[in-house]
């Protein structure tokens, strides 16, 4: 009986204290003092649509950006064999005959390094954990996992596996896990599945974006190399750059093929 009384008294005491406890947990911040959120890491702004700046870049070899001497690239025998078989649409070896450019012939994705060489636009969607890059040409997009490590055994894909981080004002994107079905550039230089690509994006000023592409592919090239291309902020919204096989074949038949037959 006495124990029950003690329990009842304790229960009564706790119940009476609840409003006070609740009140203490909901005390508003002292007037005039705004609580600040933890400072966020600096995220450079790459917003906008980026388009060609006018200077032709057909490959990433720094000594020959227009590709006037594509045979002088530091190729391994493996790469040289494939390069010699290429019949590219651009550069010193450009041709309309027997084209085997996978983009022009099959509407294959251009690939991460080559897509920037076309005179089309692209844009970024920057989220905290992922950055998306949307490319106008062929309407391709890719995702870049931010502040993550590569997986141990990535698949071999058209666009590879990309991880990224910000270094000051620069977005650094590291990509591996490529298949070898794309050309490295417009000139028919190949790359292997061992390609390791690093892109560095830096907004030089409000209207200018600089991209440095470092190619490291020991199966294809005897040394790594870095090329640069500059893009301008565009006022033109991205259009429909879809590559359709039916349209491509019609154009080939009506325009390209007649230029290759002897008259």
């Amino acid at each position, binding site marked *: 009986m006495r124990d029950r009384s003690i329990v009842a008294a304790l229960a009564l005491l706790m119940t009476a204290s609840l409003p006070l406890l609740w009140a203490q947990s909901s005390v508003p911040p002292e007037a005039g003092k705004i609580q600040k959120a933890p400072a966020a890491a600096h995220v450079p702004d790459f917003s906008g649509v980026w388009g060609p700046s006018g200077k032709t870049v057909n490959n990433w070899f720094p000594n020959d950006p227009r590709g006037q001497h594509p045979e002088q690239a530091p190729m391994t025998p493996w790469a040289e064999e494939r390069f010699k078989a290429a019949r590219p649409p651009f*550069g010193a070896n450009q041709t309309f005959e027997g084209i085997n450019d996978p983009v022009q012939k099959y509407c294959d994705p251009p690939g991460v390094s080559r897509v920037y060489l076309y005179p089309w636009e692209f844009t970024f969607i920057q989220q905290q954990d992922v950055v998306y890059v949307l490319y106008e040409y062929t309407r391709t997009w890719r995702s870049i996992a931010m502040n993550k490590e590569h997986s141990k055994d990535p698949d071999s894909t058209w666009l590879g596996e990309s991880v990224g981080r910000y270094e000051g004002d620069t977005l650094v994107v590291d990509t591996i896990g490529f298949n070898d079905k794309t050309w490295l550039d417009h000139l028919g230089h190949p790359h292997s599945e061992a390609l390791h690509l690093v892109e560095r994006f830096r907004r030089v000023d409000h209207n200018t974006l600089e991209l440095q592409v470092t190619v490291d592919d020991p199966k294809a090239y005897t040394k790594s190399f870095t090329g640069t291309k500059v893009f301008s902020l565009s006022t033109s919204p991205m259009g429909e750059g879809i590559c359709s096989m039916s*349209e491509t074949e019609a154009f080939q038949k009506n325009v390209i093929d007649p230029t290759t037959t002897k008259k």
Partner: protein
Amino acid sequence: MKSRLLPAVVLATALFTAASATYAHHGTAGYDMSKVITVKGTVTKFDWSNPHCVIYVDAKGENGDVQHWALELGAPTHMTRAGWTKSSIKPGDAIAADTHPAANGATIGTTGMQSSVLKVVVNGVTLSTK
């Protein structure tokens, strides 16, 4: 047989200033970029589609024969940026279009590269060349 247009004006100027620039899809290998001629005739079709817009023109040859020309331009996205629309040219329009002709003499030419266009006059009005 090489095409002979009547009248045809051969100019050594009015070349694409970015002759080594990149098409949206392919290069200039099949064309004589050192030459510009003017194709005059009637539009039979205006194809506003990827990978390149194409103007199809029936022009009168020197011998009075009808020549069927195909003049390529940039992709629709690039032509839009040049100020064109799908309705800029219609079948039946009278046209005089400058073009770099095919090197092998085929009645094919390139009249536009990306958003840069050689002179094209439709029904007496010069279209945007950007």
